[in-house]
């Protein structure tokens, strides 16, 4: 009897966890400080974009607006002038959308087929093609700028939206193909063989078997391409005419205008507008993005 009592003594059940350990304070403290460091500029931008010019001139950078006005946002979107056009960022937004949609769809579709063909249908020279593609991922864009100008001129697409779409599709190819190839390589060959015995061909296997399995990777690729193409400045300024400038180029022209008064509130509003799309994409797809990244890279 005594013996069994002595066994009952002591800890039992779940081990308690203390919240305020040195480790927790260090980790959460660091995270908080870093978050503030990164969020402060965003705060300043939002606050400034909601102030009128007189209030800005007082110089209280961090103070919230005394009187909230959306006028800078309206002006940035529809009235601010770049060159001869005075229809605001809406023009650049439209251009960016018209560049973004075909570039994203084309580059992802082609890259996924590339990745599928390179990993599942080994053909003569497939390794060589893959190597060349990978080398492409490491060549600095600047070295290609002028050759691409010549190519676009020769095929008559220089200065057009479709020329830029082509450039985005081609330059997105190495990294996207790599992502897709790694993912498809992780799908067992037996599955591919089973589909072949079941009478599916190249496209049958791609659409019915591979594509449904690769949805997370498509999400990752879409996020990469949407944010990458939306934020692109270099290709946009080099390969299009002013009327077709994407939003980033137009934003630069607004912010860096040397004539007249610098309208900080309009500049801030314009910058925020141009960043809204990538921001929304990240917010909406945060979990999917992480899941896709891990499934695409770890399995590869």
């Amino acid at each position: 009897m005594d013996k069994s009592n002595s066994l009952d003594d002591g800890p039992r059940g779940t081990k308690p966890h203390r919240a305020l350990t040195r480790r927790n304070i260090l980790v959460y403290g660091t995270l908080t400080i870093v978050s503030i460091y990164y969020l402060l500029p965003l705060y300043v931008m939002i606050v400034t974009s909601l102030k009128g010019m007189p209030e800005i001139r007082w110089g209280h950078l961090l103070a919230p607006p005394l009187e909230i006005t959306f006028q800078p946002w309206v002006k940035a979107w529809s009235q601010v002038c770049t060159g001869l056009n005075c229809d605001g960022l809406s023009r650049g937004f439209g251009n960016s959308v018209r560049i973004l949609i075909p570039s994203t769809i084309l580059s992802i579709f082609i890259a996924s087929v590339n990745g599928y063909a390179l990993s599942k249908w080994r053909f003569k020279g497939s390794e060589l093609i893959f190597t060349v593609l990978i080398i492409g991922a490491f060549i600095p864009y600047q070295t290609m700028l002028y050759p691409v100008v010549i190519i676009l001129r020769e095929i008559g697409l220089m200065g057009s939206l479709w020329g830029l779409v082509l450039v985005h599709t081609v330059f997105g190819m190495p990294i996207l193909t790599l992502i897709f190839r790694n993912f498809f390589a992780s799908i067992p060959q037996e599955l591919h063989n089973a589909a072949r015995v079941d009478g599916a061909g190249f496209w049958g296997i791609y659409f019915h078997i591979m594509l449904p399995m690769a949805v997370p990777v498509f999400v990752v690729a879409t996020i990469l391409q949407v944010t990458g193409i939306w934020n692109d400045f270099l290709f946009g300024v080099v390969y299009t005419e002013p009327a077709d400038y994407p939003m980033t180029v137009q934003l630069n022209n607004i912010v860096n205008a040397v004539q007249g008064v610098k309208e900080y509130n309009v500049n801030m509003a314009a910058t925020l507008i141009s960043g809204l799309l990538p921001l929304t994409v990240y917010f909406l797809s945060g979990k999917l993005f992480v899941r896709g990244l891990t499934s695409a890279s770890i399995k590869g």
Partner: protein
Amino acid sequence: MASVSVRDLTVRFGAESILESLNLDIKAGEFLVLLGASGCGKSTLLNCIAGLVDFEDGQIFINEQNVTWSEPKDRGVGMVFQSFALYPSMTVEKNLSFSLRNARLSKSDINARVRRASKILRIEKLLLRKPSQLSGGQRQRVAIGRALVRDVNVFLLDEPLSNLDAKLRAELRVELNRLHKRLEKTTMVYVTHDQIEAMTLADRIAVMRDGIIQQLDSPITVYNVPVNRYVAEFIGSPSINMIGGVIDNQANQLTFQTRGITVDLSRYVFSHKVRTTSVTLGVRPEHIHVGESRVPGVFNCRIFVDLVEPMGSDTLIWATVFGNTLRVRLNGQSDVQPGDALSVYFDPANTSLFANDTNLRL
């Protein structure tokens, strides 16, 4: 009914030769098992028959038609894979009907075939589930069903039970056996490294090693009369006892001799002429019995028990006799203890003698 013939098949992956001029004839309606350790080329051979591997040289005939250059789908073969290889994004029903939809069969025909196959395999209630919601045994049933719906002439099974636990494996083995009896016109080629599957399912077993078929015979023949040392050691569990020694010929009386042992070979049936004296005697553990035999020519001796492994249904004894290790399998349970001495006997007619230079059975 479809026979399968493989002619002079040579497969190389890079510089490595997997199969070298392999020939194999499988009769129509036969259940043939390709048995061998991993890496012996048995799966490669199966994939060649299915048309999934590009090979260097050779021909494949199915139903006496040359299908060497045909696509897998045009060969009239159904295949079952070790990893089940179910399409994860499709329901069971879609998995079963995928090949039929590819072949553009009519809706009613597809439904009828899916229903029939799922009834045979007892998976009717699972038709709307995804593969991830199935247990291992159910998955493999669906995988078999995928081959079944197509009414193929030849079933190719690549280690279909290896990914299942022991109990399920035994159950599905019996089911496969029934299925073959039921589809008596269907030829089955079955790849495995499991000798029990091979023994229980096969009409004939092809034992493979390093890309070469060592022996192609009925299971009982492979077990009783292995053509060489490799086959003898591969088949049988616990594996066969191998004792090195010499053949002695005195006054036309052949004997096998090794440390302290002389086995009278008058009851042994030689299939080849003895050209060498250095040989190995193979005795299966289950052919050694406790007790004494008065039959002339039967070998009697006393062994000393080292270790006893009770397995419930039978008992495995590790013993020594004049420095040779001997495994003895006793039926049922035994109260033999390590350190005991036992009288045992075996009939040389049940043994195999292998020449040490060629490793072939004499």
